[in-house]
């Protein structure tokens, strides 16, 4: 009997009666990303699953206490570099609440446009990797190519491809260029035409349906109690979208729908983000119509500091509800910043869904939970 001990002390060997085998689907695996799942299998059925995150833990929360409020902005973007506006948004809102800073109207519309573009950039990457996990390499190439259209728009507005550092407490850094509006409308119309084609090759593909329908079913009661959020929660039938429930900036003046599905399986969790992309295009177009002119930034003094206080703000990022708990003690550096990211909340659902599933269903279930390891580890 071969016995192998991994660095963390896990024994990879069959158990006494030889039935249960402990496998490590490790950090170097085409089906896992930078994350490890220790599964115990009996033949082909998973008996137990133990998630082991922490391979990208960089100590974000501790390091934020050593930098001042403005220096934290490019720092806090890095856990989620594709959706960087989404992870910065609640921090900026919390700073504005503690310091009672007023934001000009034009800045609010620009912030919503950039947040929606960023959410789409991440969701297309997620769809691409979902395709390649299941072996559909056309579904890898098409979203990667269409994503470049949106990255072009973001680059035109801010100057950087992915990590923009565009939001600051008080507004945004600089105004959009004049040609942004026409280019955005052209690109978004072409992108909508491409989205219709995804349905033909992917969402009605019998192989994809076989691999994801009725796989990993999550009921609404379990979903709420486990604390999952975002498209995963909406795919189980719970209508919970922070943009409608607790509108921040100018979401209460925009008109869009919340997409839910009843089945709660992996197919629903893959279909809900796709339908939401149509709504996002709608939101961006409305913002471009309604945007007033004016200043875009309330400039703060050098090395700003706020009064003593705490704030808890939440935002609907691409993956779900992102919340920040910020404590300030009147100095230029924050006292405590706690990020509550949607990816970390999905870890609780993994053992629950994987027990009793086949080993070959593991990538389909794991990636459908919208999990990004770098963000979960912070």
């Amino acid at each position: 009997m071969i016995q192998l001990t991994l660095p963390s002390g896990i024994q990879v060997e069959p158990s006494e009666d030889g039935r249960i085998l402990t496998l490590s689907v490790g950090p170097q695996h085409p089906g896992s990303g930078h994350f490890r799942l220790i599964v115990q299998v009996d033949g082909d059925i998973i008996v137990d699953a133990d998630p082991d995150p922490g391979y990208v833990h960089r100590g974000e929360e501790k390091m934020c206490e050593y930098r001042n409020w403005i220096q934290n902005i490019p720092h806090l973007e890095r856990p989620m570099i594709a959706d960087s506006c989404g992870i910065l948004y609640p921090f900026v809102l919390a700073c504005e609440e503690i310091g009672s800073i007023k934001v000009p109207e034009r800045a609010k519309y620009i912030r919503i446009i950039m947040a929606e573009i960023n959410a789409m950039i991440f969701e297309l990457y997620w769809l691409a990797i979902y395709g390649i996990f299941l072996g559909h390499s056309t579904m890898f190439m098409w979203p990667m190519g269409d994503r470049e259209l949106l990255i072009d728009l973001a680059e035109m507005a801010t100057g950087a491809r992915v990590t923009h550092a565009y939001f600051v407490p008080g507004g945004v850094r600089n105004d959009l260029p004049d040609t942004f509006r026409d280019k955005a409308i052209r690109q978004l119309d072409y992108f909508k035409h491409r989205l219709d084609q995804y349905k033909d090759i992917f969402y009605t593909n019998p192989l994809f349906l076989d691999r994801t329908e009725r796989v990993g079913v999550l009921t609404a009661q379990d979903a709420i109690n486990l604390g999952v959020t975002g498209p995963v929660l909406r795919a189980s039938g719970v209508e919970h979208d922070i943009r409608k429930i607790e509108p921040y900036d100018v979401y209460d003046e925009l008109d869009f729908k919340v997409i839910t599905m009843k089945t709660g399986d992996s197919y629903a969790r893959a279909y809900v983000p796709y339908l939401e992309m149509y709504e996002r295009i709608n939101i961006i177009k409305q913002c471009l119509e309604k945007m007033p002119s004016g200043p875009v930034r309330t400039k703060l003094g050098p090395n700003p500091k706020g009064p003593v206080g705490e704030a808890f703000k939440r935002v609907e990022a691409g993956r779900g509800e992102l919340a920040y708990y910020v404590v300030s003690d009147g100095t230029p550096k924050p006292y405590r910043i706690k990020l509550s990211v949607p990816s970390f909340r999905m870890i609780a659902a993994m053992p629950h869904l994987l027990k009793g599933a086949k080993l070959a269903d593991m990538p389909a279930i794991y990636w459908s939970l919208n999990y990004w390891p770098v963000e979960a580890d912070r």
Partner: protein
Amino acid sequence: MLKELVNPSTFNAFVGKLEDVLVRAIDKPLGYAINWGRLWSLWPVHLETACCSLEFGAASGPRYDVERFGIIEAFGSLRQCDLVVVQGTVTRKMAPRLRMIYDQMPDPKYVIAMGACAITGGLYFDSYNVLPGIDGIMPVDVYVPGCPPRPETLIQGCMLLQEKIKRSRFK
């Protein structure tokens, strides 16, 4: 004449001269051929270390296509790969696994350090869980700076590695 050839004292000199001629005729073109084969088929290990993996994925997309340079992510085992692209921050939990992966690859193998965090620790240089660069655990061939580097920069890094391979001696 044949008797002279087979004579032990002159046989060694004859073989030595033959080896000289053979090396000059075959070794150089063979070296070029083998290096040419290695250059245009660098297969990276499927390993994503941290956030720079997003730009590596974008580089494999249709706009910045690295597949035309032969860099295909081989989804098989890492015993068939000869390139490790360390993308981003290496934490202390990941470091022994990274070294294990490097040791399991067969020779010749090359390492590209991508991103500011892999070169010196980058934005997280003072964190309690981050290695200040991967120089301490494996020998690096090419450093690609940026946070994250654009896909075009990564392709330029790969082309520098190709220059380096072109000039190396075939063993």
